[in-house]
């Protein structure tokens, strides 16, 4: 069972939070716009992991972005990403600490793969050919 994210909403300035796998669907979500946050964080993580891989610097473990009205902070570990959206100008350190603690719980509670289907090799993989199915972000 995915951990509840309600405690994140109690932090000052947090408007939405989501835990997601590689497919962009929220495994847990709170707040308005959390589904959108999950979908776009998955997309961002995919792009950033590709960047890290191409640069040879490894996978992304944290990401943060700022707009005129919003701050988004997120942690990535394994196939999971946990992120929160906060009002601009709010100190994000409490949210980041809380996200780190929650992520530890997530990794204890959830399977290593967010996608049960990906654990099963696609037919083309079994045949030794390339497939878009098996890779991570």
């Amino acid at each position, binding site marked *: 069972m995915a951990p509840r994210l309600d405690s994140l909403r109690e932090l000052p300035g947090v408007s939405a939070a989501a835990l997601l796998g590689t497919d962009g669907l929220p495994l847990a979500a709170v707040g308005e716009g959390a589904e959108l946050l999950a*979908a776009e964080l998955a997309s961002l993580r995919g792009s950033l992991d590709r960047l890290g891989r191409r640069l040879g610097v490894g996978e992304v473990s944290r990401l943060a972005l700022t707009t005129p009205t919003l701050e988004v902070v997120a942690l990535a570990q394994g196939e999971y990403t946990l992120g929160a959206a906060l009002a601009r100008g709010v100190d994000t350190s409490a949210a980041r600490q809380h996200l780190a603690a929650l992520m530890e719980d997530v990794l204890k509670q959830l399977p290593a793969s967010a996608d049960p289907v990906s654990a099963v090799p696609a037919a083309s993989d079994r045949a030794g050919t390339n497939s*878009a199915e098996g890779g991570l972000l």
Partner: protein
Amino acid sequence: MLTVLTQLVADVDGAWAAAIGGLDGLLVEGHGVSGVSLDLLVAEHAGLMRAVSDAYSMVGGGAARELYIRGESLSVFVQPINAEFFVLLALDGRANLGQARLYARAAAAQLAGEL
């Protein structure tokens, strides 16, 4: 309508085609970046939508709100627009399903006024 479909394919990671189909199986409009027949995809998924709707009516589940089928090399997300039409989004194996759900829903709401 074509603009909405083009934008949908552009906005969803891993999407390669989008179409508006009728539950009668006919393609209304389509946009794709590969050679796969959208006529065939719409016809087959219209049949699946009808079957799902029949099944859910029988078990008291109400109208189908969305349908997602994941194959080894093709996945399809279907979002009803109204009782007669639906948006079909064709996806590859690593598509962002979160984006597909959200943006197909938004596209259907946009198209509802035209169909």
